[in-house]
């Protein structure tokens, strides 16, 4: 236990942190000051550098420049083990547990209590796990494998891990993203009691209500740089949003009015056991429909099923009145459906392949002549589309991984827009890209809708949902619970529906 710190002695400070990956500058000026007994909020748009900053604190990345000080002493962590030894615990967005090992082992990996002959004291380990879980007020069997735990339970295991080595600093990277209301409350109770015991907690979240409810101070980041740090009492949501975005929100969502045509995409009673249940909706030509809800509500799963990536148990998907065969992606593509997936790096692009190959990957057959596909055809086609979407590229033969996040997303869009789709499904279209590109992507979507394309957009960013959509469909725990027209949609109505409280208030 460190000496009873006053609120003026920072437990951890980071100044002038800088980190680049090749041409990508993930962090240009990271600053942070954490005090004992405070919950410190960190907000910023995706791509603002929060995750990189977290990894610097976790010892995963060594900063190219900048100083990290613990209790006033400049420190070099030298790896994850060093960070842990320094009393820093990190809970990632996606918890990093070992699926094959028991919960107890996950908590104590590398630090198991020992008995004679340096043996692991299994009984003590299990006892301590029970104590930790009791402290946290959760009931998880210490002997069960981590495989199959819900995200919420995995996070609790991670917190138990942090407790087990008396962490002075606890970093939580979007811990509530996938939690239900009850789970969020439970987590907050745990966080507050940790604060009372003198820990410094860095809390990263996209939900302003949570940040304002829980945090003592808030740091805002934008484009890899520190913007401000203020006590929460002196801030309003509007101020924070403006600092994050760096400009007025309305500019970001250039929505033009369009002629809405007939329903192009119809989804009826789509069900997949345990994932989503009886989802029905339609999207008309020239319309942008947003699919909102919390992470884990089943939105991405629904659009993946519509596109034919995943199978579904019952229900049907119709495009222009024609029923799509279940789980046949090629048929969906042939019918004019396109999906810009959620995870750009894993699903949207083949990172190691050249830009030109990525752009033309969806049309390799239509571009081929007599079954042959020459590099010149690809190059010319890729050139046309990257210019059309204003992708900033050096050489088209460079791997797509050399591009910045925003330009990568444009390549994904090019890849799918080039198929000339009737139905464009975009899943988190602006996640992790810079503000300028974000506006471009939005303009592009508006333009497409204007040309009569039916656009279905999955988004977790409320301003984006409210700014872009003609209609908002809200999902909660696998069900479509609410459809809100543009005029009636505001933050409150969407959030209430998304947290399953629509109709109750």
């Amino acid at each position, binding site marked *: 236990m460190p000496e009873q710190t006053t609120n003026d002695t920072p437990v951890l400070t980071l100044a002038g942190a800088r980190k*680049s990956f*090749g*041409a990508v500058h993930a962090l240009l000026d990271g600053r942070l000051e954490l005090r004992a007994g405070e919950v410190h909020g960190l907000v910023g748009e995706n791509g603002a550098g929060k995750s990189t900053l977290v990894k610097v604190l976790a010892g995963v990345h060594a900063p190219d420049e900048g100083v990290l000080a613990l209790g006033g002493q400049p420190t070099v962590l030298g790896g994850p083990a060093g960070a842990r030894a320094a009393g820093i615990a990190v809970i990632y967005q996606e918890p990093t547990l070992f699926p094959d090992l028991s919960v107890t082992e996950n908590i104590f990996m590398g630090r198991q209590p020992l008995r004679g002959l340096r043996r692991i004291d299994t009984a003590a380990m299990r006892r301590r796990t029970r104590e930790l879980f009791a402290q946290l007020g959760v009931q998880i069997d210490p002997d069960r494998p981590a495989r199959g735990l819900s995200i919420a339970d995995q996070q609790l295991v991670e917190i138990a891990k942090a407790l087990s080595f008396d962490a002075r600093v606890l970093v939580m990277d979007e811990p509530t993203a996938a939690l239900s209301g009850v789970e969020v409350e439970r987590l907050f109770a745990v966080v507050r009691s940790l604060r009372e015991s003198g820990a410094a907690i860095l809390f990263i979240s996209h939900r302003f209500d949570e940040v304002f409810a829980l945090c003592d101070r808030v740091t805002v980041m934008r484009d890899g740089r520190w913007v401000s740090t203020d006590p929460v009492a002196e801030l309003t949501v509007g101020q924070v949003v403006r600092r994050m975005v760096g400009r007025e929100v309305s500019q970001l969502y250039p929505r033009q009015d369009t002629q809405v045509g007939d329903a192009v995409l119809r989804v009826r009673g789509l069900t997949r056991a345990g994932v989503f249940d009886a989802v029905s909706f339609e999207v008309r030509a020239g319309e942008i429909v947003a699919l909102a809800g919390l992470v884990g509500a089943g939105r991405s799963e629904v659009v993946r099923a519509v596109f034919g*990536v995943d199978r579904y148990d019952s229900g049907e998907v119709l495009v222009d009145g024609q029923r799509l065969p279940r789980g046949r*992606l*090629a048929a969906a*593509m042939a019918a004019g459906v396109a*999906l810009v*997936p959620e995870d750009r790096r*894993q*699903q*949207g*692009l*083949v*990172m*190691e*392949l050249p830009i030109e*190959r990525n752009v*033309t*990957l*969806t049309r*390799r*057959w239509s*571009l*081929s002549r007599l*079954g*042959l*596909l*020459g590099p010149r055809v690809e190059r010319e086609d890729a050139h046309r589309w990257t210019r059309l979407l204003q992708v900033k590229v050096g050489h088209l033969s460079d791997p797509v991984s050399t591009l910045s996040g925003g330009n990568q997303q444009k390549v994904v869009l090019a*890849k799918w827009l080039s198929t000339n789709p009737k139905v464009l499904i975009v899943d988190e279209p602006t996640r992790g890209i810079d503000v300028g590109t974000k506006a471009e992507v939005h303009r592009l979507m508006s333009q497409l809708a204007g040309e009569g394309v039916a656009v279905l957009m999955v988004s977790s960013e409320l301003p984006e949902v409210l700014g872009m959509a003609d209609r908002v469909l809200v999902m909660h725990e696998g069900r479509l619970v609410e459809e809100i027209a543009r005029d009636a949609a505001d933050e409150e109505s969407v959030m209430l529906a998304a947290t399953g409280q629509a109709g109750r208030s």
Partner: protein
Amino acid sequence: MVRKRLGTWDVLVVAVLALVVVASSVLVDGFATSRFWGFLLLDVIPIALIALPMTLVIITGEIDLSVASVLGLSSAVMGQLWLSGTPLPLILPLVVLLGVACGAVNGLFVTGFGLPSLAVTIGTLALYRGLSYVVLGDRAVADFPFSWTGTFIEPLPGTTVPWVALVVLGLAVVFGVVLHATPIGRALFAMGNNDQAATFSGISVAKTKFWLFVVTGAVASLAGFFWTMRYASARADNGAGLELAVVAAVLLGGVSIFGGRGTLGGVLAGVLLLITLRNALQLADVPADTLTVVTGTLLIISVVGPNAASMLRDRLRRRRPA
């Protein structure tokens, strides 16, 4: 740009091959003769043949270790069919069908049940070799007519180049075109780098991989037919251990064991390098033990080399101010 090209592994392999050829011509007696190359090409044929589909399989991030066992099983079944009086023109399609079946079993286990191809094909490596012993036991069937067996080692008129080598070269061109200049090839590279992204781009990953295993099985059985004809002897142990040579040659040719990277030209150069070096050393009376060590070392270099090269390149790039 130029440096980038020179730094590529497959170009390097071609260069090393050229170096070996030149050096051996000067240093090794009997190397620069047409007869040496005739013999060499006969040795190259089965390995090159199997290496063609193997390249595609490894590029998609899978592996097929059962190829040599399929070769052996094909040979054993040929022998049994011949004993039972089946004419050779009928045996050939039957044997290819057998290879298709073997490949389909591999493909089914890998794509249908989602099992790792390494484990599956280690299993079928034992299974197919075991079955070939069950079929033919320890016997050898050797009374194939000379009109057939002689034909398969026949050189092109006026040369010592066996005509079968030209067939293999033709097949290599076909495989090379498929891999590097068709939509299918694009799909193979995409799924080898990231099969999820490939799926999201409308590529049927499982189906493609299944058929790739089938093709590999069929080609391995063709190699089995050639092997049996060349040595005029159908035996259950034919080609035992050949899978190691094929994998070694493919990796030596610059194909990444993790998938997604490689060229067919590089692989052909890898096969030629491996066999040329082996035969040249043999001609120079280097003992078999040393040849074994050389093969193993080449294999290790073929994976350590590109890795070290890329590490070095990364370091250089980092040192240069961005």
